[in-house]
């Protein structure tokens, strides 16, 4: 598109990055972001640790949290240098991974078939729709009764949450595929399984990944709740536990860690999506569809 009146060559790699950053530094945006975060931290600090305004001083202040976090010999027993910090992260991540894998493994095929076959949808969708409005947390007692131990109920809850989202989005994804692709596949001589593999699956991918993005979010949401209510180990448990024994600094640490880890996982899902949908990436890069 832009192969005319080009002056000079497009820079690449590091040069491109440097150019972009130089350009960005000319706009007020990075400074504003800096100021915004600064204001937020400063007011937190002032209200909390400097002036000690009520009720702000009741929660631990930024300096306190950061020093504890980086402390080799933490006052409340948990920091970047202690083992149980990582155990909690690991346990939560493992649960998320299992739940997300099960939910995707069940939800995507179910959604694909619901979107593809009207008959199948007629039979399964009503059950899904009846169960869906029930908040995931309402399942907690049932999950405890149905499954023994700590681990299974927690994973079950996280799975349930992301399963609904994934299945529904996948179904919508299949339904969103333009009829003409099915027709084109038909008149090129496809059998049913060709249509499924070459039209239904790739066509639904954008929706599936939108669904997975949301799904990993709700998985974390439910996991934290479940861990808070009935868990041992995990970041949600860490929050609840340190709250119970008045280790408020550890609690804030756990909250921030949770935010960070959650952000990483959803970035991973996004990256996976972009990799699997090259055709979309490249078309967008062209300013095309």
């Amino acid at each position: 598109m832009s192969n005319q009146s080009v002056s000079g060559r497009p820079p690449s790699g590091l040069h491109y990055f440097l150019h972009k950053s130089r350009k960005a530094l000319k706009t007020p945006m990075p400074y504003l972001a800096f100021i915004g975060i600064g204001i937020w931290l400063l007011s937190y600090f002032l209200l909390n640790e400097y002036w000690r305004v009520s009720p702000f001083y009741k929660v631990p202040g930024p300096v306190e949290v950061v020093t504890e976090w980086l402390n080799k010999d933490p006052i409340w027993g948990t920091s970047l240098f202690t083992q149980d910090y990582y155990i909690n992260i690991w346990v939560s991540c493992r649960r998320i991974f299992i739940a997300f894998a099960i939910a995707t493994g069940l939800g995507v095929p179910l959604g694909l078939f619901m979107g593809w076959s009207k008959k199948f949808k007629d039979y399964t969708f009503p059950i899904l729709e009846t169960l869906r409005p029930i908040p995931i947390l309402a399942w907690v007692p049932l999950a405890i009764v149905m499954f023994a131990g700590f681990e299974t109920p927690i994973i079950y809850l996280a799975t349930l949450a992301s399963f609904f989202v994934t299945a529904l989005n996948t179904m919508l994804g299949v339904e969103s595929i333009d009829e003409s692709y099915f027709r084109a596949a038909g008149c090129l001589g496809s059998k049913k399984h060709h249509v499924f593999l070459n039209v239904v699956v790739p066509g639904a991918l954008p929706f599936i990944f939108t669904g997975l993005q949301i799904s990993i979010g709700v998985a974390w949401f439910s996991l934290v709740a479940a861990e808070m209510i009935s868990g041992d180990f995990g970041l949600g448990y860490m929050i609840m536990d340190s709250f119970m024994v008045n280790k408020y600094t550890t609690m804030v640490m756990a909250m921030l860690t949770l935010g960070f880890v959650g952000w990483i996982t959803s970035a991973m899902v996004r990256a996976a999506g972009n990799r699997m949908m090259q055709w979309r990436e490249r078309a967008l890069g062209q300013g095309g569809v």
Partner: protein
Amino acid sequence: MAQSSKNKKDGKLKSLFTDLTLRRGVFSIVIFLVLWEVGFRFHDWFGIMVPFIGKIDAPSLVAARWSEVVFKPGYWESWYLSFGRVFFGFMVAQLVGIPVGLLMAVNKYFRGMFFPPFEILRPIPPLAWVPASIIFWPTTELSIMFVTFLGAFYTIVINVLGGARSIDVQYLRAAQSMGATQWDLFRKIILPGTLPSIFIGAAVGMGITWEVVLAAEMISGGGQQSGGGLGFFIWSSYMGGVMDQVIVGMISIGLAGYISSSLIRYVGYISMPWKRMF
């Protein structure tokens, strides 16, 4: 003549078809309930325990319990309390979230300053805030409402911001060339143009609000002090070992969520007449 008879035949086929979808749905739900009932009774009848389902009280028991519970004022009080919390948290989130979202959309300095901290805090699930807000707020009631507010707030801001920024620039240009001032643009283009996104955000936010209220009630109200609400209803039934009542609570809260999102859809429907096609 031939035409009209064909007419009738096709019309019938059509209604049969729509009925088919309905009938299949009803059929599968009935099957679902029957399987559940049989699964629970299996142990009594044949002496074999069905895993998972066997432990969950059968629909008949649930129905019986429900018909009892509806006459207890405590049940309806739970409804009332939960609705109150949801409504309050949701309303505050709307009142704060919509202006913040709009301000971020129209003023790039405001956006540049406040969007980054907003994005840093957003990945923390609202429930993780429960203990912190219990410490912070003087009463449990306030802390539940705060967490509820937080749950809906992020969704609303993101939707309003996205909605306002995706308004077609042609509307702005058309209005500008007809002499619109900045204030006119905001009032006559950005506000109505964002309305659909506001309602989408509200519907999603409402769902999250219910989740959060329920969890907060189970975590905080379930323990000591205040309490009440459908979450507490479920939790205390569970603690008391009344499993059928737990399921009554679950269904009730599903219903409550459904009712509130229908309400939002209805308000959206009447306030956006241009979205009604024909």
